[in-house]
């Protein structure tokens, strides 16, 4: 089941791999560590890979979400700022995708 704990574990594993690729370590990294900005843990290139890997890992769990959108990028607080924020955002997207068909159904009936 995809919940916050599951997402954080998955994202931490993706992040660990990305850090290893750039010769860094996951040691000392928390779910509140910055993913973007001047103190970001990874390069911008690695960040792109992290987002793509998270999307693909979720796809493997039959969860289809598109993380990067105009709506996400225009938020006053970026959902990509930390793993904690990103996991909340993914749960929000999942919740929205689950409620969409129900809303359509009720309108039709």
């Amino acid at each position, binding site marked *: 089941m995809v919940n916050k704990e599951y997402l954080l574990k998955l994202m931490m594993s993706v992040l660990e791999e990305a850090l290893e690729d750039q010769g860094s370590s996951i040691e000392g990294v928390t779910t509140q560590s910055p993913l973007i900005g001047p103190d970001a843990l990874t390069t911008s290139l690695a960040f792109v*890979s992290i987002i793509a890997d998270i999307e*693909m890992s979720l*796809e493997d769990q039959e969860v*289809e979400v598109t993380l990067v959108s105009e709506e996400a990028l225009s938020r006053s607080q970026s959902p990509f700022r930390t793993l904690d924020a990103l996991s909340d955002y993914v749960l929000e997207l999942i919740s929205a995708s689950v409620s969409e068909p129900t809303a359509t159904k009720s309108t039709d009936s």
Partner: protein
Amino acid sequence: MTSTKRIALVTGASRGIGRYLAEHLLGKGYTVVGASRRSAEWEADGYHDFPTDVSDEKSVVDLMKKLRKLDGPLEVSVTNAGVASMNAALLTPASSVRQIMDTNLLGTFVISRESAKLMRRNSYGRIVTMSSVAVPLRLEGQAAYVASKSAVESLTQVLAREFFSYGITVNALSLPPIDIGLTQGVPKEKLLKLK
């Protein structure tokens, strides 16, 4: 030791150039995934036909899900699917332009993007996009097609720069007219001039 076969994806493989490319890659030992709107009218060992509309993002994502279940890494992706329409610009409806852009440009973008996501994992990939000799010739009667292929060339150049660091090359192949369905609407004298 298990031997995994390398995978090549060819869009528009049900017929024409795509079919020949698919057969060529099969001959080179690849497992080939063909993705066309219609099912292929041919079969071969190692060939997997996954009907796909390249202009539909979800359809492409579904294609990649099926491809990922095959044994072996995706190494080659040929974005061959394309449509053309021979018509004077003054008489070309916007719907035709949109359809051409959706298949030729958007389709190339989405297939390239999804292919790169998989290729990135092995730090190796070869993406080949399709342009046309109609671009440098500024072929009259093919405004939308030429515009779409010009855009594909620019897209290819940018993707090549973005994907290079992942070990993926992106190149465009510019072909002369070939006697296939796509050139059916082009008058013979024009085809001869292009050859």
